[in-house]
């Protein structure tokens, strides 16, 4: 299956890149934008057919490496 992990700064943690992007969008006259967050996406294939097992594996990957849970949240998407 295909795995997509989205990592972004936690809600309470100031996202300077998001702020800079927001300002840039405003300077392009997109004045209807708010709450911009910049994150990263990690995509890979996982050789695992059991969804439960896959979720457990990817969660462990996120906790150990893909996200720094002191400052970041992660969201996992599994695509069969």
């Amino acid at each position: 299956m295909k795995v997509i992990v989205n990592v972004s700064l936690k809600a309470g943690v100031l996202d300077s890149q998001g702020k800079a992007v927001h300002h840039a969008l405003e300077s392009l006259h997109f004045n209807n934008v708010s709450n911009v967050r910049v994150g990263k996406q990690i995509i890979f294939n996982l050789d695992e057919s059991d969804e439960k097992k896959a979720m457990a594996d990817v969660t462990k990957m996120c906790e150990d490496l893909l996200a720094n849970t002191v400052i970041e949240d992660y969201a996992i998407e599994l695509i069969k």
Partner: protein
Amino acid sequence: MKVTILQFPGTNCEYDTQHAFKSLGANTEILWHKSEVVPKDTDLLVVAGGFSYGDYLRSGAIAKFSPVMQAVTKYAKSGGKVLGICNGFQVLTEAGLLPGALKRNESLHFLSKHHHLKVVNNDNIFLEKLHNGDIVNIPIAHHDGNYYIDEDGLKELYENNQILLKYCDEEGNDKNPNGSVDSIAGVCNKEKNVFGLMPHPERAMEKLLGSNDGIKMLQGFLQA
């Protein structure tokens, strides 16, 4: 006195650090990250600055899985003294040996300049040659030096005197170059044997190069 200096692919301050400690009379050894042990005679282990693994994913995130890091963790947990400078500080927070995390600078710019720092707690081996309130002039050079810790963690840092240094101006007034929580430039663990800071004391060893305030900091380690 033996100082062991860690070297990952992408580390670039190991020779400056070696030069600094040698000039203070220490024996030094540079240790490649594939080593699975910390040399037995090590009195101080330094995780030097640079860009381990190209800062891929996050600064310090990949380095924490290097073979040597298990030995470093064991060494630290058994009371061994560890100092992380710049990328070394990032590695130690990623490895969970120091609290908090380092984010991208608030300005999003890479900062490379001299900066003043105020000594906040000198009741530890690293800063005991200095006094609380002393102001030192030490270079900073980082992109991800914006120290973050949540409110409970910050309270704990204050309660246990774990904040080592804060950024300030020449007079000691608050001046924050990178957005760090409470202008924190360096912290230690509760047990006060693991130290981390973003500024580079090893680059402040000679007046000719702008400052020798790093001498008093690094000397603290050499008397034990």
